């Protein structure tokens, strides 16, 4: 609770109490630049203390939404609430949010400690007291400055950058700059952390490490994080909940497991998962049967004949089979990729230009030779069906509960 104490010093009003209650509410937010619609009526509630990731391809509007929450951009319509209060009329500094930028946006001429102290100095010292030399002589300035220094030092220590305080950003590595940027956001003890692709400028190894550190930071601070990324691995590993954005719309907001196992939409299914989900055109044949890629699958639910559907099968939902049969797809093996723990078999099946990718245990490596015919059994309960317009045809949710318990 200690962190909330500092908000009093920032001179916020009596509604401090409410900061503890809710996270961020986005209600019907739209935004267009000229004739380009960037956001189309986004509504999303983010719980207090939640780690929410806005995931989507570049240009989907996720960064714009984050900037609207921060107050750096003004929405055309809709409202943003932070901790239950509308903040649309407030400037960024009054919204109780802090932001970490993709470029880190550290002030290059200031040292690490000056960078981190800046938000506190702006909040707690009057313009006169911030003046060099004269400011320090004014009553109160010195004690506040000392207090700020202590807090910066404490935050720096928590992030393991206390030995860098005297350096300038130009003298730091990418990972260190990243930590300083996080530190500058942290010192203010904001109610909401906004992060705009903070890891995309780091090399792969550091990215994995920082992923863990940010997750740990979230656990320790317990405040709301809104994290923008186009990297599905970051989204899957760090988030409590992922909000998938496509073409300025919220396609789905759910936990990583749900997004993966039960995507609401064909595009969401394609976005999540590597290698990508296999998509095959399929035709219902009555009696719960489905003709796909020259084989027949049996379904639990009934589909109307004549409506073509798309069958989505994750690579791990395919099993090696000795012979053809019901629920088994047959094709010609193009090549095999070894990953150590698993292997990816790329199989050409009739009626699809893209090879089907199956994730198989390495034991099958010796059985598999290029150009041979292979049979793959579909784990029916994990298969996903999409209508022609991309919507997911929902099966009973029970199956997915069962699926998740199977997958551990």
């Amino acid at each position, binding site marked *: 609770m200690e962190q909330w104490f500092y908000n009093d010093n920032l001179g916020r009003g009596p509604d401090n109490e409410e900061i503890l209650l809710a996270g961020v509410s986005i209600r019907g937010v739209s935004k267009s630049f000229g004739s380009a619609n960037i956001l189309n009526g986004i509504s999303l509630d983010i719980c207090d203390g939640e780690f929410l990731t806005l995931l989507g391809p570049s240009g989907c509007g996720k960064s714009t939404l984050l*900037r609207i929450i*921060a*107050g*750096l951009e003004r929405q055309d319509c809709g409202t943003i609430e932070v901790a239950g209060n509308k903040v649309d009329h407030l*400037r*960024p*500094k009054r919204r109780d*949010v*802090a*932001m970490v*930028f*993709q*470029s*880190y*946006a*550290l*002030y*290059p*001429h*200031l040292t690490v400690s000056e960078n981190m102290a*800046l*938000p506190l100095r*702006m*909040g707690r010292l009057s*313009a006169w007291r911030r003046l060099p030399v004269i400011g320090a002589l004014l009553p109160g300035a010195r004690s506040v400055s000392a207090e700020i220094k202590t807090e910066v030092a404490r935050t720096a220590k928590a992030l393991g950058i206390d030995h860098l305080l005297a350096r*300038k*950003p*130009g003298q*730091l590595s990418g990972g260190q*700059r990243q930590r300083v940027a996080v530190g*500058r956001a942290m010192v203010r003890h904001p109610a909401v952390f906004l992060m705009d692709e903070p890891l995309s400028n780091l090399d792969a190894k550091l990215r994995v490490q920082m992923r863990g550190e940010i997750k740990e930071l979230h656990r320790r601070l317990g405040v709301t994080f809104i994290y923008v990324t186009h990297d599905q691995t970051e989204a899957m590993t760090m988030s409590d909940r992922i909000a998938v954005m496509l073409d300025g719309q919220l396609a789905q907001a759910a936990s990583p497991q749900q997004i993966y196992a039960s995507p609401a939409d064909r595009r969401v299914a394609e976005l999540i998962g590597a290698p990508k989900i296999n998509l095959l055109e399929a035709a219902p044949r009555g009696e719960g049967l489905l003709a796909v890629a020259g084989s027949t699958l049996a379904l639990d639910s009934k589909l109307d004949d004549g409506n073509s559907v798309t069958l989505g099968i994750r690579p791990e939902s395919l099993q090696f089979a000795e012979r053809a049969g019901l629920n088994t797809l047959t094709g010609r093996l193009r090549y095999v990729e070894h990953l150590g723990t698993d292997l990816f078999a790329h199989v050409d099946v009739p009626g699809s230009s893209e090879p089907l990718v199956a994730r198989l245990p390495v034991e099958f490596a010796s059985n598999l030779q290029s150009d041979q015919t292979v049979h793959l059994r579909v784990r029916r309960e994990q298969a996903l069906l999409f209508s022609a317009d991309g919507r997911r045809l929902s099966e009973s949710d029970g199956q997915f509960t069962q699926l998740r318990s199977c997958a551990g």
Partner: protein
Amino acid sequence: MTSEQPAIVDRQLRIETGHAETLAGYALIAPALVLIVVLFILPAGAVLAIAATDWHLGAKTLSFIGAANFASLLADPAFRAALFNTAAYVLMVVPSTLVLGLFLALLIESGKTLRAFYRAIHFLPFMTSLAAMAIVWEALLHPTIGLVNQLFAAVGLPTANWLRGESTVLPILAVIGTWQSLGLALVLFLAGLKAIPQDLYDAADIDGADGVLDRLRVVTLPSLAPVSLFVLIVVTLRAFATFDTVQILTRGGPDNASVMLLYALYRESFEYLRTGYGAAIAVIFLIIVITLAALQTRVVNSRPSHP
């Protein structure tokens, strides 16, 4: 720099590959070397040598007089006036060019429309010949029919013979100098402003530095520091080398009130034909310019890299 690199590479190779490469290396730097020697080192050496003589332009004899020229320079009130006027002129032109240039650049950058137009009209004075513009200024500043005095008289301000008054002539030259350098400073500042990442302003907004002055202090001015230093040195060098306005508008007068280093040099060498004496002024001018240039190199090299 480029002329040195082949030589360095060559030195490393010499042990293994013998003389052919050595010769090739020297052949490659030769053109640059010749140019430097002919265009810079020889004339500078000649000026130094002449400065130590009492040579008059066209005279058949000369004698070596050591540092006597420099000694008499220091005692010469005209030269002291030139030195003082030049310093005063630089101190007037440089700060006003920098402050006005930055102010105009910020104004133009903050506006949405007609940016190219404003940039062009402010850059025009820099592009045109100052000699031609000096004549326009002369007409504007004419004591009786000049527009300036007529305007001043119309609104009841005191008029003056601007270019003939001892106290007004140098400030007026400084105004013209500022007017001319402003475009250069403006364009360089505009380029510097464009290079500031928007993220920094966003970060400043979030950190609470969202007032005009705070944004200037936290983001704009520090980010412009390298550009400002560059502008400072370029404008200073130009101000030191002011000659055309003095020659055309005042000829150093009245009573040496507007004489400046380069004009003094010209007058001694080509009007009074005291070439040795003029060369001594050239040496002093050279020392000042080289010091400034060295300063500039250090500043540019020590510019912090922007992440």
